[in-house]
């Protein structure tokens, strides 16, 4: 028996695309949970990360806190919040926010930090105020790394949002839990494949976004670098 093919067959089966709990509905729920988690976590983590990257202060604390948060097992956190908040989406969303904060925080402060201090000093010398430097210099220049943080956070959220089904009738995790417990491995694998595909698709979108947000000036320097780099092996071989 080939479970892998069964999994794809399960996804393609039209019967699974109709009725309550169909694939489209679960995909929508999964995305909705992931998107709300990303927004909540971003609202918390990005300003803090920007402040740390801009001032250069509190970096050690941020590294320590985000390292600590990363070490928390999400299922344990989920159970803890579940006992506090009861069943439903509140506990999984909160647990996922904790999961998403470290990569977002790291992306934000690394992005702001990556901006050459000479550039920042030049902006300051030109008379730009701090808020203008953050918004007009550091944010656009640090954007690719910041989007990279959002990108890795979103993939983690989508993969882990399967746990929403632990406490609520929501998301693609329902297929995985139900398939496992009822020995319907086609359903379980089908659900897993959908989660993987969704994560890859979102990752791809952010990869494109990451290229788009590179400021035009930086892109010009980069392509020059790229050309000089690609010409080097040619001179070496030829």
């Amino acid at each position, binding site marked *: *028996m080939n479970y892998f093919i069964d999994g794809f067959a399960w996804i393609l089966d039209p019967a699974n695309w109709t009725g309550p709990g169909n694939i489209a509905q679960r995909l929508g729920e999964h995305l909705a949970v992931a998107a709300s988690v990303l927004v909540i976590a971003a609202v918390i983590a990005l300003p803090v990360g920007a402040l740390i990257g801009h001032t250069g202060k509190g970096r050690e604390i941020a590294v320590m806190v985000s390292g600590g948060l990363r070490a928390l097992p999400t299922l344990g956190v989920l159970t803890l919040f579940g006992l506090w908040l*009861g069943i439903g989406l509140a506990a999984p969303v909160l647990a996922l926010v904790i999961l998403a904060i470290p990569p977002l925080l790291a992306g934000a402060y690394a992005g702001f930090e990556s901006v050459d201090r000479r550039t920042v000093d030049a902006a300051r010398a030109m008379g730009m105020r701090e808020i203008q430097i953050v918004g007009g210099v550091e944010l656009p220049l640090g954007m690719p790394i910041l989007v990279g943080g959002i990108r890795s956070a979103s993939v983690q959220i989508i993969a882990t949002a399967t746990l929403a089904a632990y406490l*609520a009738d929501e998301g693609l995790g*329902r297929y995985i*839990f139900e398939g496992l417990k009822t020995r319907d*491995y086609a359903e379980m694998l089908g659900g897993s494949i959908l989660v993987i595909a969704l994560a890859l698709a979102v990752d791809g979108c952010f990869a494109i976004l990451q290229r788009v947000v590179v400021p035009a000036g930086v892109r010009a320097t980069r392509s020059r670098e*790229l050309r000089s780099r690609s010409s080097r*092996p040619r001179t070496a071989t030829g």
Partner: protein
Amino acid sequence: MFTATRGRLGALALVAVGATVALAGCSSGDPLDSGSSDSGDGSSPTIVIGSQDYYSNEIIAEIYAQALEANDITVDRQFRIGQREVYIPEIESGSIDLFPEYTGNLLQFYVPDTTATTSDDVYAALSDALPEGLRVLDQSPATDQDSYNVTKAFSDANGVTSLADLAGVSTPLTLGGNSELATRPYGPEGLKSVYGVDVAFTPIEDSGGPLTLKALVDDQVQLVNIYSADPNIEANDLVTLEDPEGLFLASNVVPVVSDKVTDEIADIINTVSAALTAADLVSLNGLSVNEQQSADQIASDWLAEKALF
């Protein structure tokens, strides 16, 4: 620039091919098949005892293990394996020799549409349904079966003491339990067809544990599936609804054994099963849940109390 792009395309193609090969490798064969373990020098084989990932089942398995050890039989404990769907193939393949089971749930595993509900009928049907190479020993009077429970407040307010009374409740009802309950014969569909009760379903994946209890006490769900031997039913003053139509199968504790289990071993385990009463099982579970005692200690205390072996 041109070479760089081509190089990147080549790398992409390589990754794609590699991933396909790796995935194809994963997909063939049974993911649960770990092969059978041979311990056979023949003279006195080690008996491999398994248990579910359920504290009460582990206590029973530990009692089996200590009873056999008291009779100089070597045992290998492979406890906390997981759900039935995971360990049954291991017993069938001969990797595990002795496993505490529950007659009703196990029968439904093999015969999903079984009509047997009484204890003796279920045991007889189960003995017939087991595949070649597997058999059950005597069943114990102790039961641990699925049961629907409501809070005392809900029971008093709506005058509900039996599943049949639920049809008269006018407020909407939500049932909470593990996700597989949604598809089991005694789940929402069974409630509808046997008792004419409409319920919504909310999955709570902790097998009637603290999250399920909280949801019930908070009135997020009104009806939950908790195993009948769970000490939390009494501790939280829950009302277990009667089941006059036999929606649930009777589910007595029963050992499932492989061919390696001899008559001598079977006699020992049968003695244990006969001594284990339903009240015993609830109190053993209580020692684990409320007193936080280890399965090891609970098992040896119980064997000493019953003066077995």
